[in-house]
């Protein structure tokens, strides 16, 4: 079973990110959130700390760490703010990871160092206006012209809700596209790297979002967008299998982020319950409040165990698909419930954007939707138990 103690270097990393989140992020993030502005200076500082290179080897500018280390960093950031945490999660897990896992040596050398340094951001475009959960329903197409001799992919279609796709420092979006006719009942889907600024690639204006207001999300459209043939990522026709792997890992990262949010709710509630008085007593003295906080702590704790177990399986090369789905399911639900309870403890102040719990409340819901909805997690768990499709 798990060693109850984190190894020293992971604990040092956790403490460093905790300190960063408290000193650098906490005082300023509310203002970015309010203005729906992307926090470039904080992202740059995270880059200098090496957070974007955490799970990648040093030869590509990475930190030589692993996915577990990334998850610890995400948890600590999300204890204070989810917008920055999702920027890191999407940049690493969705932006850089597909290149690292499936890229050729040249592709890795060309794209990864910038992404690892955090000077540039990567994005991954899977979801389309007509389909997210049913990723096989992809309509975006890529047609290969003059294959073999300086050929190019001509991409047409659109993507929805793509994180990190439109910042000033976005370098690329990897998109899934149909590259061939149906075979054995399934379309041929491949992944193609589209550099930002490629003619025919339009980044639509940012959405008006309920939460994650300091993160970058756009719809994308492609109209005869041409990229070189060598921008195909991994094998042709393997796109579907590739993003399933990427999403399996990403779920652990989202679970870590959700755990952080759930813990942040405990942190804030403890502090507030100590300060706030009602009917002549501090509200921490009421058992109703104590029980809420105890339940919140229990949920954050179990969420943490679930994601750390899945992450440990992943880095040891063991099967982790079901554990990742469970982690995401329970952690996102913990985040949602804790945000609701923390807001309750804060009373009217909890409904004000200037308090972190207001942000937590708005940021929690997406965790039950993004990178596989809770229904999809249940489907995955059911399949793993052998229940029929």
């Amino acid at each position: 079973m798990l060693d109850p103690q984190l190894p020293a270097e992971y604990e040092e990393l956790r403490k460093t990110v905790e300190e960063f989140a408290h000193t650098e992020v906490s005082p300023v993030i509310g203002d970015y959130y309010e203005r729906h502005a992307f926090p470039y200076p904080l992202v740059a500082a995270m880059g200098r700390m090496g957070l974007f290179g955490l799970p990648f080897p040093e030869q590509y500018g990475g930190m030589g760490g692993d996915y577990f280390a990334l998850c610890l960093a995400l948890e600590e950031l999300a204890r204070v703010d989810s917008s920055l945490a999702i920027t890191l999660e999407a940049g690493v897990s969705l932006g850089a990871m597909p290149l690292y896992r499936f890229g050729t040596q040249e592709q890795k050398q060309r794209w990864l160092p910038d992404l690892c340094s955090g000077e540039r951001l990567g994005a991954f475009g899977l979801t389309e206006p007509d389909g997210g959960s049913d990723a096989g329903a992809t309509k975006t197409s890529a047609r290969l012209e003059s294959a073999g001799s300086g050929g190019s992919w001509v991409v047409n279609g659109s993507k929805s809700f793509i994180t990190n796709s439109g910042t000033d420092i976005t370098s690329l979006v990897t998109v899934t596209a149909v590259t061939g006719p149906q075979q054995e009942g399934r379309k041929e889907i491949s992944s193609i790297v589209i550099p930002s600024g490629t003619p025919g690639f339009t980044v639509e204006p940012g959405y008006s979002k309920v939460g994650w207001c300091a993160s970058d999300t756009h719809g994308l459209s492609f109209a005869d967008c041409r990229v070189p043939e060598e921008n195909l990522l991994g094998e042709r026709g393997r796109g579907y299998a590739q993003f399933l792997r990427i999403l399996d890992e990403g779920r652990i990262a989202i679970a870590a982020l959700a755990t952080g949010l759930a813990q942040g709710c405990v942190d804030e509630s403890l502090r507030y319950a100590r300060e706030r008085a009602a009917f002549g007593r501090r509200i921490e003295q009421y058992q109703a409040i104590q029980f809420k906080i105890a339940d919140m702590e229990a949920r954050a704790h179990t969420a943490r165990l679930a994601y750390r177990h899945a992450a440990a399986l992943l880095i040891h090369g063991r099967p982790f698909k079901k554990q990742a789905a469970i982690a995401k399911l329970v952690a996102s639900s913990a985040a949602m419930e804790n945000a609701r309870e923390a807001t309750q403890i804060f009373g009217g102040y909890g409904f004000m954007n200037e308090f972190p719990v207001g942000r937590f409340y708005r940021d929690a819901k997406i965790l039950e939707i993004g990178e596989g909805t809770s229904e999809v997690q249940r489907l995955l768990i059911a399949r793993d138990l052998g229940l029929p499709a």
Partner: protein
Amino acid sequence: MKIVVLVKQVPDTWAEKRLDPDTLTVDRASVDGLINEMDEFAVEEALQLAEKHGGEVTVVCMGPEGATDAYKKALQMGVDKAVFLTDPALAGSDAVGTSYALAQVLGTLEYDLVILGSEASDARTSIVPALLAERLGLPQLTFASKVEVDGTSIKINRQTDYGHDVVEAGLPAVVSVVEKINEPRYPSFKGIMAAKKKPVQTLDAAAAAIDTARVGAVGSWSKVLDATVTPPRSKGTIVTDEGSGGVELADFLATKKFV
């Protein structure tokens, strides 16, 4: 260029601190230890100078056995190696004793520049940099908010109440820095991993040729006789205004001789 940066481990500034009633020193066992905040700026400056001019940075720390967090942090930030001076005989050293002990350690090292923070958040004497420079017979450049090194000389902006002075000296020299000088980096995971493999030399008093009669509680020139905790503020008087509030307020001010 060879740079030595001095760091101290202090009790967490935010933690509640207690004085040990027997020794009248801070009870360090009861709170987390960490690097003195100002020393992080010294480490950062040393690293930036080494990155710019090439060279090697050594961190020197004196402290009780097990007080390893401060120099470890410096190693994680990127310092090349550490020297840790620890000996029960050093416990309770005042600034005079501390500067002597540190000077002895520096005597075992080669360096062109010594950098340290202007003050430690626990004792706050701010005189160790000057004492140390005097003992080493080196120029002292204190309260630096900017440092420039040029081959054989060093120039600093010395922060003052009215602005800054520009002060220059030949190398080697002792420089103490203020918080304005830079923004200390956070250790990266690579730095954290690398720190585990960096050389740490642990010295006791004898190894640094320290005369134990000149350090510790015994060797200190000053002695803490008594320590009193600031009493909590009393509750104050609440005047409920039932028509005579103004008069009562005026009376209060008059009895306290404010009016």
